[in-house]
């Protein structure tokens, strides 16, 4: 079985985001990491690969720097590393088309990804890729098991959780779960350094991206809040409660 895991490199969640000239300054990002939810997708892919002897294909669409993350994925066990250049990408639908084309090219039967990336926070990739592949998709999962070609997972529902099953080409978007993430060992890191990353472009995938009807005008720091009122000591709790009622009108 070919298992594809879709990964994105993002500023580490501990990194400070600075703005320069109306754009997020990527050069000032102190550390780039695999998006946290993607790590859970990768871990699930590794477990599935171990259970079935499948081939785990790590795919990313991004700038050159994101190749480092593919090497990190190889250090814990990814077999095939695919880097799709993001040249010409203007919106998330473009990214999904490239990812879907790569998934078809490498003939993956199951596709795992994070529920959203820690930079754009969108959550479009999994369902969008599924749509292009005419595949089923279940979001907010934390574990996937399979019996033959039927996949079984749990997802949140309006009243709790539900166990769902699906077959055929399937996409799963992962939330943070209770699964322990594995760390690479020295041997894994050494082997990963030698692993070849296949670099492909939109043209190689036979995709012509075209224009988009959206344009990012600017990126800015979040609006500053006016300084709040600060009180020393628990004796001021009743004052704050009365302000919440009379000034803020929220209780």
């Amino acid at each position, binding site marked *: 079985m070919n298992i594809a895991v879709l990964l994105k490199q993002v500023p580490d*969640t501990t990194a*400070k*985001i600075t703005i320069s000239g109306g754009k997020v300054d990527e050069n000032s990002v102190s550390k780039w990491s695999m998006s*946290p939810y993607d790590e859970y997708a990768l871990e699930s892919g590794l477990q599935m690969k171990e259970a079935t002897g499948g081939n785990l294909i790590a795919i990313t669409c991004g700038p050159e720097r994101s190749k480092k993350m593919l090497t990190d994925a190889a250090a814990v066990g990814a077999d095939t590393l695919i880097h799709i250049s993001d040249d010409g990408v203007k*919106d*998330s*639908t473009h990214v999904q*088309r490239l990812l879907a084309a790569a998934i078809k090219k490498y003939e993956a039967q199951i596709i795992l990804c994070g529920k959203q990336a*820690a930079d*754009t*926070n*969108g*959550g*479009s990739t*999994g*369902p*969008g890729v*599924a*749509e*292009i592949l005419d*595949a089923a*998709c279940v*979001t*907010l999962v934390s574990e996937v098991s399979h019996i033959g070609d039927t996949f079984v997972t749990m997802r*949140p529902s309006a*009243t*709790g*959780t*539900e*166990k*769902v*099953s*699906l077959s055929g080409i399937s996409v799963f978007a992962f939330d*943070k779960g209770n699964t322990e993430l594995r760390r690479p060992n020295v041997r894994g890191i050494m082997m990963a350094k030698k692993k070849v990353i296949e670099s492909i472009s939109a043209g190689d995938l036979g995709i012509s991206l075209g224009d988009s*009807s*959206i*344009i*990012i*005008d*600017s*990126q*800015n*720091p*979040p*609006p500053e809040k006016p300084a*709040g*009122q*600060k009180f020393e*000591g*628990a004796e001021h*709790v*009743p004052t*704050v*409660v*009365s*302000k*919440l*009622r009379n000034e803020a009108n*929220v*209780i």
Partner: protein
Amino acid sequence: MSFTIIAETNGDALHPTTYQLIGAASSVGSNSIVLCPNGNGASEAANINGVEKVISVVGDCFDIFDGGAWSNALNSVCEGKILISASPNGREIAARIAAKRGIPVVQDIVSITEGIKVERPIYSGKAVETVTISGDAVITLRPNAFEAAEKGGDATISTVNQSADIKISIQEAINKASERLDVTEADIIISGGRGMGAIENFSQLEDIADIVGAAVGASRAVVDEWGMPHRMQVGQTGKTVTPSLYIAVGISGAIQHLAGMRSSKYIVAINKDPDAPIFGVADYGIVATWEEAIPALKSALSEL
């Protein structure tokens, strides 16, 4: 110009965010064509200001949630710019419809102005992005970020029978044991962090939550270290919340936590460390231990 609105429903009724979707369309001078999956909430939608018409999209596929089937059925009556709630199901339908139509999707916007220009938080609120949308697009709106439309009006309701193949089957439904509100649904949230000392002390926060009808949240530290359920986690790798009132108790205010709650309307911080970063985003800060502040808060709220 009209926007297509896909109604967010709650059983047979409309979810409050549907009023906000219609309100957002009206704020930029657009009428709303409201699509009600399986007809739920259709008569309610017909009586909201700014609604031009209501289309009940009826089919077996709406019996369970399968984003692929729902978007196939709904897409047949979508046109132009499409507004959907940025709920988990809403985001999934939005991404699918956009991919199907080959148009962009802009998720989780917090403002919309004529032109059409929208703003959306990125990096979990560490920055805000302004986007100009010149053509057709699917746009999801963050719940509670927009003025709700008022009741009024009398739009026509038509019914379209349109089902689609379901690819997901439900094996078993497990109902929640706890009746407590979810943090993403609550108007008031009280969250605890490592400063609460131990997981047992969260019962103190639950008492307060019961008095004011709040949800209980938690910081990443207590979810990871004390095993609180992840669904309670507020922050960059947890839930992003926008309640009217957020009360942070014993939470220092790591950048990842602030990312998940800084757009709350009012923030109260209770922390014994006067230099805790949480005070930087608090409207009302109280420098005290939780042991002193929580009983005082409980009695002050009970007296209201």
